[in-house]
């Protein structure tokens, strides 16, 4: 084992060790990549439910009378119409119109927003936000990541299994909404959000009760095939659902419009960081687009592999994420390609270990669940 003394541990570390998880370094944390097996965990989430430790995620609070104004300035989405108890996906914007990070904005109160950001970006995000807030009156930015544990309980059975453990009516929490409630008597934010393409919840609690909650959910679901699920399954699940991973599919060189995330860009909401660049891209069109593809030949196209439009041709793009889809049983991925080659059906060739392998552009997402949670 490599020296892991410099890695942080989540409040659930002991649970992972007890369950025999394979632990890996991830974003400065020692995290479970799998427990029983990636495919099995993946299927549990699609067919039943799976429990993830996502305590590594960052929690940054924006507070003060001008909190909304500040959130509007840093984000490309429009948060002015949110009511308390709503969550919205958006980009934390750089002046280049690109992503400093992607995040979930939760409206906790009229003067309080919770930003849930990627663990790998937490320090960078917080420094950026502090700098931006330093010349503003009436807004405070606070990094409370160390005070929160977070678990994600995802899958079609999640609501049913979780209900007896909470004091709120889960059926009343619609998709991308949250409430303050109690889990096993412990205060929690209960949010109907997730990163798997399934129905499910993300529970934010203090660190101390997290192990008790973790064990209780697994116990409540053990006869229904509920499994703990690791980062491996989290990645294959989100990719099937066509969700972007920061550092792979989006980063400081890519804009939301290039990433196919035009739905989070609200140019008419007023000014925000990077807006001028996005407005120009919206008018003139983007040069490249993030697309989904299926490998029609053999092998898995992985992050960083070259993409060409003909066999052995000049590379025109790069695979940003790629895996074997446990649900579809084929190799899938996402890649940036020239905008005029982004139509579904466009043939691509991907260099998989020196062999140009045929692939085809397909619509995203690769997978969407049949029954949608009500959003309105």
């Amino acid at each position, binding site marked *: *084992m490599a020296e892991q003394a410099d890695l942080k541990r989540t409040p659930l570390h002991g649970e992972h060790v007890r369950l025999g998880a394979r632990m890996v370094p991830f974003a400065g944390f020692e995290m479970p*990549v*799998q427990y029983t*097996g*990636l*495919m099995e965990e993946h299927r549990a989430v699609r067919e039943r439910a799976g429990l993830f430790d996502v305590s590594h995620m960052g929690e940054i609070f924006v507070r003060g009378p001008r909190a909304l104004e500040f959130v509007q300035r840093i984000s490309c989405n429009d948060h002015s119409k949110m009511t308390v108890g709503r969550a919205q996906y958006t980009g934390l914007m750089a002046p280049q119109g690109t992503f400093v990070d992607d995040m979930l904005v939760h409206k906790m109160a009229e003067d309080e927003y919770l930003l849930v950001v990627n663990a790998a970006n937490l320090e960078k995000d917080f420094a950026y936000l502090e700098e931006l807030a330093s010349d503003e009156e009436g807004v405070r930015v606070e990094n409370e990541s160390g005070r929160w544990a977070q678990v994600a309980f995802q899958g079609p059975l999640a609501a049913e299994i979780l209900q007896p453990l909470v004091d709120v009516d889960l059926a009343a929490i619609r998709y991308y909404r949250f409430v303050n409630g109690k889990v096993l008597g412990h205060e929690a934010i209960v949010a109907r959000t997730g990163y798997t393409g399934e129905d499910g919840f993300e529970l934010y609690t203090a660190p101390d009760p997290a192990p008790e909650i973790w064990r209780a959910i697994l116990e409540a679901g053990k006869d229904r095939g509920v499994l703990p699920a690791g980062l*491996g399954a989290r990645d*294959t699940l989100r990719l099937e659902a066509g969700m972007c991973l920061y550092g792979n599919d989006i980063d400081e060189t890519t804009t939301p419009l290039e990433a196919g995330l035009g739905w989070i860009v609200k140019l008419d909401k007023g000014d925000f960081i990077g807006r001028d660049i996005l407005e120009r891209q919206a008018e003139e069109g983007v040069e490249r687009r993030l697309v989904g593809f299926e490998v029609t030949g*053999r*092998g*898995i196209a*992985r992050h960083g592999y070259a993409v060409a439009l003909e066999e052995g041709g000049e590379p025109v793009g790069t695979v940003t994420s790629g*895996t*074997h889809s*446990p649900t579809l049983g084929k190799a899938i991925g996402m890649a940036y390609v020239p905008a005029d080659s982004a139509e579904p059906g466009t043939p691509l060739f991907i260099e998989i*270990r020196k062999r140009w392998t045929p692939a085809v552009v397909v619509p995203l997402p690769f997978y969407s669940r049949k029954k949608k949670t009500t959003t309105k």
Partner: protein
Amino acid sequence: MSVPNDLRYTRTHEWVREEGDTVVVGITHYAQEQLGEVVYVELPEVGRTLDAGEELGTLESVKAVSEFFSPVAGEVAEVNERLDDEPGLVNDDPYGEGWLVKITVSGDGAELMDAAAYEAFLAEEGH
């Protein structure tokens, strides 16, 4: 840890079973466990000549790609074609149905370990 006594092992976690002048090659239980569920297996062409230690093919799991190597010098006599459709055999039965390649040995092989030595090697590596 599953390390059968009747096989010999490499430092790159292949196992070797001697059958007359041919050897059967696969990857060990430990190797398949590290790799996770195998979803593609790329095997060499029958008839290819090999040096000991030469790359024989690749195994892909959802998370990782891993090469495997020829423990001996020789010629590829047969490959396990079932793995095209059932790559999971490598995980389910690494020492049996999940074998990879048969090689007709033409020269001296690399130094192979017996089961006890391989187990000691795994322990030394901290597994």
